[in-house]
């Protein structure tokens, strides 16, 4: 069954088109990754799917029902974890979860039990009486999730839930996503961290400039670039890097340079490692290591758009 089906969705803000004729479907039981750089249109799409924004054009269905015509049904089925923390600092962790779960129609003992279960799920049961102001960033993020799952939604939409948190909390949240999926929820996970999407998602859509530019499983997406190889060269400094000359070497597609790393995407069938090394040495770039890498979603995005996911 399609948990979410988006058909030819467009959203315009004045003259600016944030989402452009976008279509996708999410099947029941999937962890669906929605990957794209900041400003690509992920959040706008998600906000339309959760009825926070109206679509300029197109149609959205949740479990086969149009969300405009069956608004209450659609809202009841969705649990939404916003990108920013959406909790009341003047209410305890328990009160926060209790309040939001109550809006979904839970009452009495069932409401209490659901609130406690949600807090247990995110590991905050022992802090249920504490106010969020005493929580770390990671704990607040977990509370943010608990508020969205207490009513046991069939579809959970997480909008960049790991932004700005420590690695330990990030791992906790990623594990929670897997657990939620195992207990029966379908997950839509948006992120601009390709490692996260690669780690947990079974199906992935890559969005850029409001359009889906690639969709499929990890293997399917990487297959797009099986004719590509990625060479990572560690250098002392990239100050003297002959960027244009590197790009002109036969087979080289893209060159990305950080402080001490050069990432080169090149055609797999052309052996151009020697001319690349020779050019760098001749330019006075001191080489400290060379590594051939497996293609990643980052490489896929780079190949498809010519930019990295973290580009503004």
């Amino acid at each position: 069954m399609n948990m979410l089906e988006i058909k030819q969705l467009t959203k315009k803000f004045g003259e600016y088109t944030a989402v452009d004729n976008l279509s996708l479907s999410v099947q029941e039981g999937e962890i669906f990754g929605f990957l794209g750089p900041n400003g690509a249109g992920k959040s706008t799409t998600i906000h339309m799917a959760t009825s926070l924004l109206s679509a300029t054009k197109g149609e959205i269905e949740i479990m086969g029902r149009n969300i405009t015509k069956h608004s209450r049904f659609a809202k009841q089925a969705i649990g939404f974890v916003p990108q920013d923390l959406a909790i009341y600092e003047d209410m305890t962790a328990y009160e926060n979860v209790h309040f939001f779960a109550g809006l979904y129609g839970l009452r009495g003992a069932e409401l209490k039990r659901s609130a406690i279960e949600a807090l247990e799920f995110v590991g905050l049961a022992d802090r249920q009486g504490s106010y969020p102001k005493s929580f770390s960033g990671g704990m607040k993020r977990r509370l943010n999730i608990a508020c969205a799952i207490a009513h046991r939604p069939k579809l959970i939409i997480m909008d960049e839930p790991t932004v700005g948190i420590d690695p330990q909390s990030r791992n906790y949240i990623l594990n929670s996503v897997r657990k939620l999926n195992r207990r029966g929820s379908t997950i839509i996970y948006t992120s601009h961290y390709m490692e996260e999407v690669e780690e947990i998602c079974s199906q992935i859509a890559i969005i850029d400039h409001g359009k889906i530019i690639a969709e499929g499983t990890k293997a399917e997406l990487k297959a797009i670039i099986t004719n590509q190889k990625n060479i990572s060269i560690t250098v002392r400094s990239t100050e003297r890097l002959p960027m244009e000359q590197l790009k002109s070497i036969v087979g080289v597609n893209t060159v990305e340079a950080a402080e001490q790393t050069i990432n080169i995407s090149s055609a797999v069938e052309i052996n151009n490692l020697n001319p690349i090394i020779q050019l760098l040495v001749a330019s006075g770039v001191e080489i400290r290591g060379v590594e051939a890498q497996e293609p990643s979603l980052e490489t896929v995005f780079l190949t498809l758009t010519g930019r990295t996911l973290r580009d503004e």
Partner: protein
Amino acid sequence: MNILRIAGKELKVFRDIKMLLFMLATPVLLMLILGTALSGNFHGTVKVDPIRVLYSYNSTSSAVGKQWEAFLLEAKASGIRFEEATSRTETDVVKDVQNGLYTGYARIADKGISYYGNSGSGKENGIVQGLLAALADRYRLTITETGLSASNGNYVTEASVDAVRQPGGLDYFAVAVTTMIILYSALTAGQLIETERSRHTDLRLLVSPVTKGEIFAGKIVGTLVLNAIFVAIIVLLSKYMFGANWGEHLWLVFLVLLTEIVLALSLGLGVGYCLKGNAAGSVLMIVIQAAAFVGGAYTPVDQTTGMMNFLSRYSPLHWSNDAILQIIYAGNLMAAPPAMMLNLGCSILLLALAIVLMRRREGL
């Protein structure tokens, strides 16, 4: 149910003891400071002119005669001169009263006492009438009015015993500061939706199966109850801490205050939806300060003239204060409905504006 749930959440502010104390201390201190510092604006002592009263005694009852004689002795001891209008017609007597030679004219008969006072001697008439009323009450007599005053136009009128009741400084500022503090709640109301937006909880509310209308209603009901409780505490504190006079019809006074709370919340929401962010707060602050100044929050405005008098008519504080003071000091319960209708009428307009703007907007 969701409206009540959202309204209940608004009431959790009462758990913040520090804020609660601050919210209560501000009006109470303002009442005390303004009431003490500006008590000179309220007449604590009144200069009374010499009182001379003509009377005619027409009773055949010896009991009434004895009582009247005793009364004359007591009045004389108080410096009030009662002179019998012997061999003079009532027309002449009334003329003397009209010309200000006498404060009034009393006619004592078996059925009771009739009194006519000179309208130019309001305070003095009040005293005489008070004394006569006390006498009548003591001896179960009645004070009646004959048709004489009507034949003499409006010049000779019966003075009201209650006319001398006036609010003291603390009494006035208990009312004025309370109505002013209520108007300040517009600032909180202006931030009601903005606070949800800044905390991003608006997203969570909107994705839940709750309509915008329910969210809007829940927030208004919650804030209304919060402010009503808060105002009730202030009224009771001023009544029992400072002995401020809130009159004998506290329920009606509270109804007027309640409609002013509705007006303040509507004003905040209306401006909050018209202007975003800090602009709404700034505009509200200007409106509230202006309304407070011309509405008599810092000094009574009932004696003002010209532009100030004109502007004061458009301040909700003025019409609310006026109605409440009328209820307390003149027992005029009919002063309440016009003020309440003005408050509610303005509220409906402002709420309608907020609702139209809310429906047009994406999100809250």
